[in-house]
């Protein structure tokens, strides 16, 4: 069995409650940090651990913390980004639902290091029941003296608040999240200034993913150096992967970074292979916004090196033949999957979730969806395929926030790797309509309009 750090005690009955969690070694890191370490020591440990943001971008957490403006006399805030909305990603939900105290513990230690006296958990509105779980956990922690005034006699005060969002993907972008948390429309802000200088209520703010903050707990418990020994290269530690799709055992798995992808997908310990009688067609390794990889490029890079589950290995080959680890939303598709339909589905999501602030994303995502809708329903033409590539190119990099990129990458990569399938849709609409995997509407019927 591989090493588990976050999900070590996940199967202990009653781990949701404070008492069981505490009896299994919970809140040790709070005692260690508040009693024996200074805030800067905690940050040093996180830096040494090489922990990288688990929300998708993979930015080193210690470095992010060190950017926080500690000199200003304004209050500092830590915000936990629990607005997990990427299609294919459900790891934070699992963590918060089944072992909420590890997040609270991580938040206390991180807030202590960053000097935040009020810390917010911004959780997506659809996770309504988890709000109750978290609030219950906060109340328990407070009752036991781990939150509130003068925690463990250290003179440090902390309150944690849970704020549900209204259900918008864009609020997972850190500046849109801050806007939403302030009670405004969730539009991403122009950067600079970065949140580390001027974030929530114009105060220095750090926004981190749930898993990132929970990982601070094992880092403090075992020491940053020890944590950095796990993993491979600059991808240190363990990562939660939410695996879904045509596999035998979908679910949330904690892996040591550097695990071979073949082992992850096909061993019984993890996903248990593709469902019987089928073969792997493509994999989206990090949530819907990362480029798709066909099976042969997923197992091995273009140079023939076996891929590992790590930030570097999955992005080997750049956008031409690689992908990204992203947020760990691992989607496997077998040969029955229609790539065009899959892409249409992804694009539909980004069209629906674009905030509408900047023009390339507002107009481009809708346009791409309409063209794909046409293609999937057998009304496309060959020029539509090049049109899609061109629209994606014109969105990418030209928007305020990364949502434009996230919408453009799947389109570019799906067409790059599966162009013949798009052409097949154009050439043989009647075959596509009757193929076993197409739920296509009758191609002869007039196309219904895509709703705004």
């Amino acid at each position: 069995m591989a090493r588990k750090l976050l999900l070590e005690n996940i199967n202990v009955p009653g781990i949701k409650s404070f008492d069981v969690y505490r009896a299994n070694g919970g809140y040790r890191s709070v005692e260690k940090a508040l009693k024996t370490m200074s805030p800067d020591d905690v940050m040093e440990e996180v830096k040494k651990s090489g922990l990288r943001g688990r929300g998708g971008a993979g930015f080193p957490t210690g470095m992010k913390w060190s950017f926080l403006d500690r000199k200003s006399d304004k209050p500092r805030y830590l915000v936990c980004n629990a607005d997990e909305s990427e299609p294919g990603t459900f790891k934070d939900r699992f963590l918060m639902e089944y072992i909420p105290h590890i997040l609270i513990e991580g938040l206390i230690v991180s807030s202590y290091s960053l000097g935040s006296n009020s810390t917010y958990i911004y959780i997506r509105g659809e996770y309504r029941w988890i709000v109750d779980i978290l609030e219950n956990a906060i109340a328990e922690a407070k009752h036991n003296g781990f939150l509130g005034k003068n925690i463990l006699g250290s003179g440090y005060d902390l309150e944690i608040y849970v704020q549900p969002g209204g259900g918008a993907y864009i609020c997972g972008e850190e500046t849109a999240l801050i806007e939403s948390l302030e009670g405004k429309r969730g539009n991403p802000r122009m950067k600079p200034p970065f949140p580390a200088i001027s974030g929530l209520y114009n105060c220095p703010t750090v926004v981190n993913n749930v898993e990132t903050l929970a990982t601070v707990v094992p880092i403090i418990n075992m020491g940053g150096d020890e944590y950095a020994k796990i993993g491979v290269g600059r991808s240190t530690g363990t990562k939660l992967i939410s695996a879904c799709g045509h596999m035998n055992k979908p679910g949330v798995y904690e892996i040591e970074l550097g695990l071979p992808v073949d082992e992850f997908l096909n061993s019984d310990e993890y996903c248990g292979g593709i469902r019987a009688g089928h073969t792997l067609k493509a994999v989206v390794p990090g949530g819907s916004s990362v480029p798709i990889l066909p099976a042969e490029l997923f197992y091995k890079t273009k140079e023939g090196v076996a891929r590992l589950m790590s930030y570097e290995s999955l992005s080997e080959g750049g956008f031409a033949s690689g992908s990204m680890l992203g947020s760990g939303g691992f989607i496997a598709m077998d040969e029955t999957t229609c790539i065009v339909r899959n892409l249409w589905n992804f694009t539909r999501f980004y069209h629906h979730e674009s905030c509408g602030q900047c023009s390339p994303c507002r107009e481009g995502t809708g346009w791409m969806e309409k063209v794909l809708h046409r293609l999937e329903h057998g009304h496309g033409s060959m020029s539509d395929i090049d049109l899609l590539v061109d629209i994606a190119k014109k969105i990418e990099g030209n928007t305020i926030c990364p949502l434009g990129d996230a919408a453009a990458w799947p389109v570019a990569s799906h067409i790059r790797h599966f162009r013949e399938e798009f052409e097949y849709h154009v050439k043989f609409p009647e075959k596509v309509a009757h193929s076993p995997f197409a739920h296509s509407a009758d191609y002869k019927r007039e196309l219904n309009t895509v709703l705004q």
Partner: protein
Amino acid sequence: MIKVTIDGVETEVEPGTTILNAARQIGGDLVPPAMCYYSKLKGSGGKCRTCLVKVAAGSAKDPRPMPKLVASCSTPVQDGMVVQNITSPEVLEARKGVVEFLLINHPLDCPICDQAGECHLQDLAFEHGSAKTRYEEERRSFDKIDIGSKIQLHMTRCILCYRCVFTANQITNERVHGVLNRGDAAEIGTYIENVIENDFSGNVIDVCPVGALTDKTFRFKSRVWFVKPMYAHRNCDKCCGKTTIWMKGDEVFRVTGRKDQYGEVEDFICNDCRFEKKLTSDWTVEGPAPIQKNSVQAQNKYLQGIKVDAPKNIGYGNISDR
């Protein structure tokens, strides 16, 4: 003062100046177009993405180029920054893309639009757009709404620059309109049919870069190139009273703020001046207002004798696309 080079032209600007304003200090063709930025409105800009430029060198200290194109209206210059605007094919390509995006859901109803002739989107499409559209789907459309007795909102033409929202926020004491919904369903609205009643509400017409907010006292009265803009003033206890009045013969057709060469008003004017004072006797006329060289208004006969630079590539779209 810090040094910045834009398209090979070096200039010195105050620290904190944005790239766009530095370019405007140089002037000429290298000024990026701006559809949403408005220098009089705090916080505006960054949304339309037409002013994207390439930063070839970040600063003298750190001469690395910036990885993406940046919005020049919201990026402050650094000492030693090297910016490429019209000299970068990448920028022109991206701008062409943005113009295409702005136009796919625009009705292109210029022949019946009151803004035609002074429309920023028209100018932008003329410079950077292509003659043909690749968009086959149905365009977004909305019903016209009257917001107050003097202003009409025609959302179909809106490009969501947010300028009118900033105007209402910053120069009136309460804002009753804003952006509803999201993505390409986003619209300017008052949520529940509401009337924008405020002494300065008429300024949303002046800041609107397209024909989405129009003056109902002027609608369908005349094309802008048939009326003659004159600087005029009157004593007004609410605003500065300095305006441009648009006349045909001795008749005042409409009143607007005084706009500079980037289409930005010098000073916001009140609704009294804008909507109520439509008699020549209300105004002291100062003389003809300057007209931008590219403006269709410059084609008008009355300008004979005044030197006007001829607009470039007259015709339908770019020559290369024909």
